[in-house]
């Protein structure tokens, strides 16, 4: 096996190639060997699986979502949620930082007076149009109050109408953070 660097150098200089290399036939065969090896190996594993053997070896790297899921990273940006104060009201003070930074312009906030002058401002409505959201996470970064987070690990929020894709403040508040465990582990979902 030639080292990748050598191969690269030789490719740059066709004169340096030998006759057989220039025909590409051996290289083509090597390529076919590689893919065929995978094919037969996986075929074998699947056949053993059918026979109830070798269950600990996976015949495929893919995760069979939704029957299986991988443990998500805490850094994963998933469905938004609005955090709450101790009394259950939103922490959001409607400062519009997220609305301003949002590159997709999918956040719509209407501000109103908070009865407590020390809080002063609260959102009368806080809508996120997930149909537009690009999940960049800027809103989370920019929030001065830690009022919006994307740690719910909810990814399946598809809906049948555009209107249903708009999440209002109550839905966003009802989202709960997901406890992170077994990052990268594949788990069967019942």
């Amino acid at each position, binding site marked *: 096996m030639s080292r990748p660097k050598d191969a690269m150098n030789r490719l740059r200089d066709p004169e340096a190639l030998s006759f057989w290399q220039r025909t590409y036939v051996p290289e083509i065969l090597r390529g076919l060997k590689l893919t065929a090896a995978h094919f037969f190996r996986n075929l074998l594993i699947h056949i053993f699986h059918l026979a109830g053997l070798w269950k600990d070896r996976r015949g495929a*790297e893919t995760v069979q979502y939704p029957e299986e899921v991988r443990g998500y990273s805490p850094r994963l940006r998933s469905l938004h949620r609005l955090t709450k104060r101790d009394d259950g009201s939103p922490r959001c003070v409607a400062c519009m930082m997220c609305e301003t930074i949002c590159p997709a312009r999918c956040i719509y906030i209407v501000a109103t007076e908070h009865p407590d002058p020390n809080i002063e401002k609260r959102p009368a409505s806080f809508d996120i149009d997930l149909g537009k959201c690009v999940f960049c996470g800027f809103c989370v970064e920019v929030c001065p109050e830690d009022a919006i987070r994307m740690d719910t690990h909810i990814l399946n929020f598809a809906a049948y109408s555009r209107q249903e894709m708009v999440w209002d403040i109550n839905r966003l508040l009802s989202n709960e953070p997901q406890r992170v465990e077994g990052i990268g582990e594949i788990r069967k979902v019942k």
Partner: protein
Amino acid sequence: MLEWAVAAGKVAFSLFVLLNFVMVLTWAERKQSALMQDRIGANRASILGFTLLGLFHPIADAIKMVTKEDFVPQGASRALHTLAPFIALFFALISFAVIPLGDELAVGGCTISLQVIDLNVGILYVFAAMSLGVYGFVLAGWASGNNFSLLGALRASSQMISYEITIGATVVGLIMVFGTASLQTLVRRQGDLLLGFLPGWGVFYQPLGFLLFTTAAMAETKRAPFDLPEGESEIIGYFTEYSGIKFGMFLMTDFTETVVMAGLVVTLFFGGWQFPYLQPDGFHFPGAAVVSISPLAVSIAQVMTFLVKLAVFCWLFLLVRWTFPRFRYDQLMRLGWQMMLPLSILNVLVTGALLLLLHR
């Protein structure tokens, strides 16, 4: 009357084999590529909860294709747009007619050749059919009224014309060796042993011819690494403007061509239905050992042999398609004209010289 019935039966059988191969290929392509890439592949289509390794997907696909909207773009020529996939598919299908599935079958006193039709210029028939098939693609591209489609069609036509020359030139060597252009005769002649023990298959006479022919055959199917007419990541190709069953027909054409080409390779270079050492009356192993078998069993074994060989080459074609990256268009043309064509002519010359030497 009987002749008609036999002919109809042969057509039906041949079509049955071909179409089933095509159908299974659509499934095999997904599954095989999945295995090669450590994936699972299609496994979702289910009937009553059974998925059967995804084997229902071809059916689901067919239903989908048929029920989808058949869309003809504004500015397209409606009649030609509709006609194009039919032309393409038709010529792909009929080229299978001259490929022998087996030797003659003697049933109730009459012998039936296991081939739709045995033309003495069978190989030319295949080329003719394939050449006509190009019209389907050109029409599709032109009638769509879409620049990208037209570009794809032009690529398709120039690519197919370029590689048909190589195909033709390589086959010349074979015709010279076996002295016939009839495919059935060609296969029969490959039943002879070479050097006393080696099956007399074309690949042993024409190894370079085999390589060139296989490569050119892959190019003829317009699949990766020769999928420039389609070029999913760039121009989409001649069927950009197709949807529904008409698009499905182009897909079928692709797979049909794959099967036909695999059949041709098998027929020309791998002895067709010939099972090594199996003669019409039984096995004749080198060293004079003879095991006699009933003629019917021989016929069945021959057909099975052909189908297995066909399957192996289909597998090989898929393996190639899922292994190599696409050519650039100029590379494709240079390969066709500057490498394969001279080599195939060289092949003819060398074959001729050798034949002259041997027959002196």
